[in-house]
Structure formats: structure tokens, C-alpha cells
């Protein structure tokens, strides 16, 4: 294992150190004193690698990442998991805006709350299926223009609405699952709320168990409450705009 003290370190230097460590064959890197360094793990393409960040990573954590697992002990800022291709980000705090922006694959688990526009433009393709699991609540525009993949919203804290307004605006693929349903949230006009079926329940159970394992919850407790599915009612919401 390699330890890096990132205090006062510019992100470029930090990312060079991480890349250097991976190239020398190390698979376990722990970074202390992270405070605002951007692009940590950007574009890393390697499986079986674990990076632990203690502190507050800067914007675009794990952007374009393809394979590694990043665990953050702290909150993350905007754009974590931006265009993530594969791999995993586990956040033991809360997230800023734009989490999982344009994510194509991989998994993001957040213990706490998330900001605005989470999962914007997520998409799936063949075996690539992006998943975001959120322990707390989300702000407005969750799943905006979402084209594929899955967002599971647990709302465990129940200190505010489970999501904000404009939920699923422009959504035309994928699914958002909300524990207890999106009560009091204004939905985008492209989506509707449905009851979950057996297939949905199986997917939810699988990821709820993983969430419980990462953050020390009892999955039975999480699964006790009923889940609801928010999905688009058309695959081409804007199909008619440019047809004559």
C-alpha cells in the first residue's frame, strides 16, 4: 500500500503520483489531507485498484475513470463520477451537484445527501449499466435527460423531501426508484410513478444489500418500506419538435 499526503499539493502533482504508483504495480493507494484537488483518478483505466481519499476531493472526482474503486471518507464536490465508464465510487459523506453526470457504467454509492442534477444524462449501452445509490435525499432535477441506467433513492434520514422538483425532466430511458415514493415532488412531464414489480424488487434488493454493507446498515430495515418506480412514458420526448 502507498500513502500520499496531499496537504497543499496541486492536483496535477497528486494525479501524477497516483498514476506513477499504479504504473509501478501498486494496487492500493491511500491519500490523506485531500482538500479541493480536482480530477482525482481522472481517466484511470485499470481493474483491481483501490484508492482511498480522506478529506474533501475537488470537482470531477473519478472523471472518465474505467475500472478502479475510489472510497471517500468525507464529502465530494460537484461532478463526481462525471462520465464514469466502469469502476466504483463509495462516498461516506454527501455529494455536491452533478454526481454521475453523463455516467456510462460503473457504480456510485453515497451515504448522505446529493445536490442538484444528479444523474443528468446517464446512459446505458449493451453490458454497460450505470447505477447510483443515494442514502439520503436529492435536490431538484434528479435524472434530468436521463437515457439509461438506474438511480436508487433511499431517503433514510427523512429530514426533507426525498427529491426536489423537476424530477426526471427530459428523461427518456432508465429508471429512478424512490423508497416511499416521490411525495411532494413536482415531476417532469416526461415521467410517471409506477409500483415496482418482482424484477425491480430483485434489482433494488441487490443494491440495497451492497449499500448496507458499505455503510453499516441493516438491509432488511431499508427494504421494509415500499419502493416506487419513476420511469419515462415515451422514449422520444422531443421526437415531434423537429418533424413537419
Amino acid at each position, binding site marked *: 500500500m502507498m500513502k500520499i499526503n496531499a496537504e*497543499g499539493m*496541486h492536483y496535477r502533482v497528486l494525479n501524477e503520483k497516483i498514476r506513477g504508483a499504479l504504473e509501478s504495480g501498486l494496487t492500493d493507494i491511500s491519500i490523506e489531507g485531500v482538500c*479541493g484537488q480536482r480530477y482525482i483518478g481522472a481517466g484511470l483505466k485499470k481493474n483491481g485498484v483501490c484508492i482511498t481519499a480522506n478529506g*474533501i476531493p475537488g470537482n470531477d472526482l473519478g472523471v472518465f475513470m474505467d475500472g478502479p474503486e475510489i472510497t471517500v471518507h468525507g464529502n465530494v464536490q460537484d461532478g463526481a463520477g462525471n462520465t464514469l465508464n466502469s469502476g466504483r465510487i463509495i462516498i461516506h459523506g454527501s455529494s*455536491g451537484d452533478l454526481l454521475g453526470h453523463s455516467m456510462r457504467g460503473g457504480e456510485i454509492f453515497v451515504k448522505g445527501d446529493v445536490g*442538484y442534477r444528479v444523474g443528468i444524462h446517464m446512459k446505458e449501452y449493451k453490458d454497460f449499466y450505470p447505477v447510483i445509490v443515494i442514502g439520503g435525499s436529492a435536490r431538484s432535477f434528479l435524472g434530468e435527460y436521463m437515457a439509461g441506467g438506474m438511480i436508487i433513492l433511499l431517503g433514510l434520514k427523512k429530514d426533507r423531501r426525498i427529491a426536489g422538483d423537476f424530477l426526471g425532466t427530459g428523461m427518456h430511458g432508465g429508471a429512478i426508484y424512490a423508497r416511499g415514493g416521490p411525495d411532494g415532488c*413536482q415531476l417532469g412531464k416526461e415521467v410517471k410513478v409506477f409500483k415496482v414489480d418482482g424484477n425491480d424488487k430483485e434489482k433494488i434488493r441487490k443494491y440495497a444489500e451492497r449499500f448496507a454493507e458499505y455503510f453499516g446498515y441493516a438491509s432488511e430495515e431499508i427494504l421494509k418500506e415500499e419502493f416506487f418506480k419513476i420511469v419515462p412514458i415515451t422514449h422520444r420526448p422531443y421526437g415531434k419538435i423537429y418533424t413537419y
Partner: protein
Amino acid sequence: MEYGQLKERERSGRVPSGCGVSGIMNRTGKVFSGDGILASICSMTERGNGLGSGYAGYGIYPEYADNWCFHIMYDERKARELVEEYIESRFEVVNEEPIPTRKVDALKYVPLLFRYFLNVKNGFAPESAAEEDYVIKTAMDINRNFKGACVFSSGKNMGIFKGVGNPGEIGEFYRIEDYKGYIWTAHNRFPTNTVGWWGGAHPFGILDWSVVHNGEISSYGINRRYLENAGYYCTFFTDTEVITYLFDLLGRKHKLDFELIGKILAAPFWSEIEREKDERNREFLKTLRIIYSSALINGPFAIIVANSTAMVGLNDRIKLRPLVAAEKGEFIYLASEESAIRLICENPDNVWMPDAGQPVIAKLKG
């Protein structure tokens, strides 16, 4: 982070990014050095491109607490002569001096920078409200009619320091760490629509108001025309200027509180108003939107506004720019990035992301 270390790389290419803002307030009015705000904004040097930075400090001139303080930049000595003659015709000058600066090699062009501590001449503005209008008129007259001169700060016991450079350079230039204030705000600019010039850097100020802004204002033309009717003239070629005057108009003249100003500048959507269950409140919000439709700020923004008694953070209503808040004891912090707060406040009591369009209001106690 050593802010100087970014200089070289900073100039080597264009970094696509947004502006950065930061603010710190001690709610009991206890003053503290500019070190903290300097470290906080410099940690976000990445968010700007070296074309503008600035600071506002409150409580920095206790020895002149009752005098109006003008910070003025001049392109040339002639402009200074003419403006000083004009100021002397309207004010008693208690003191005037160059604003203390350090030589910073990276700053290629530096205007002449002076500060003036002033009293309104006897009989010129008998009532105190009129005195404030008199000060605004003086500042606007200079900015509109005197070529090569620009009043960029005009409050009491506060000051704005700004210019073209990154936050480390501008902070070093103005010796920000030498001042002590109970509110500090700072800005790091990435100009998108308007030129990067010394007057166009943030904060913008009039009287004791100061505004730092990340974003752009699509409604600038409407806001500007609305403000002209009330005697505010825009002269800085930067959209943020209108926010400053809107706060003076709504806060000082119309005597509205910050909650209400938030509902005017970042007005709730009509659909949100329709969903309001309380009929009285629904009608009220509707009326407010109609009366103040020209004061609505359209476009993405995260702003930190301050005056002598408060610091306020506000986002546009759909949260198109970042803003994080934190508190620890009597201190309250606002910044574009959480890391810019954590760097200067290790274990905050509380860190949160303000809701879009909902102001965070920190008031001076007592």
C-alpha cells in the same frame, strides 16, 4: 496551498472554468485578519483565469468609522486633479492618501489608486437618508462624467480592493493580510461576456454594499433600464453591477428584508406559486412578481452580498452555480467549493448546501 505556485501554469493556457466566490463573517463583529479570505479564494485560483480578483472588508477603517471612504482608480494624473477638485466642492476631506500597495511583477498595468475619507459639507445634505443619496450621486457623477476615473468603493468603515490579476497577486498587491475586518468577501474572475479591466473586477460596491458574483445575467438590459428610472447608472461594463444597485434600491430605499429580496431577485416559478396552498401567500407572491418583474435576475448566479450589518448568499432559482455554507461558533462561511471553507475552518459545526433561490442570511448581532 502556496498560491504563488500556480502562477506559471496559470498563464500557460486557457482553463475552462467558472468564477469563484468566498465570504467569511464573524457575527459578533469581532475583527480578524484578511489572511483567511486570501487563503480561501486562492485555493480556488483554478476557477478564474487571472483577469480579475478582488476583496471587500468591513470594519477595516475604525479610525475613520464615521467618514465616507472613496476608493478611486485613475488612468492618469489629470483625471485625479479634476476629480479631487470636484470632491472638494462637495465634501470636507478629512484625509486622502494613496492606497497602500506592494509591487507585484505579474501585474503589468496598475492604475493610480487613492482613498479619501470624507464628510458631507455642512448644509449640502441635511437629512441622513439624503446624505446617502448625495454620496451615490457623487460616485455616479464621477464614473459617468470624468474620463479615466472610477470610484470603486464608497462606504463607511469598509473598502473594496480589486484589479486585473489572480487572487494571490491582487491580495499581495493590496496587502489584504494587513487589514482586519468582521466581514470579508472575495472573488476570482473568469470573464465570459465582458472585458477584464480593473473597474470590472469584483466586488462591485455602492455605499456599504458589496457584491461578488459567479454567473451571468441574461436580464441585464431590463434590470439596467429599471435602475436608471431610480437614478442608478451602470458604468462598469459588467453585468454584476446591477445586483449591487438592486440591493440598494430594494434593501435601503424600499426597506425590504433579505428574505423578500431573495423572492424578488430569484422569484419562485409561476408553477411553484400556483402550488402554494395558502391563498394569502399565493396572492402575495404573485403581486411581488408583478410589481418587481424588472428586478428579477435571470440567468445563472451564485452571489455573496454584504453590507455593514449582514452577509447574504443567494443562488439562482434552479441552482446553476455552486454555493456551500458552513458555520462554526460565531463564524459563518460561504464559498463556491466546500474545500475553500474546510481549508480555513477545520471542523465546522455545520456544512450545508443552500437551496436554490433561498438566501443564507448572516446578521451582525446586537
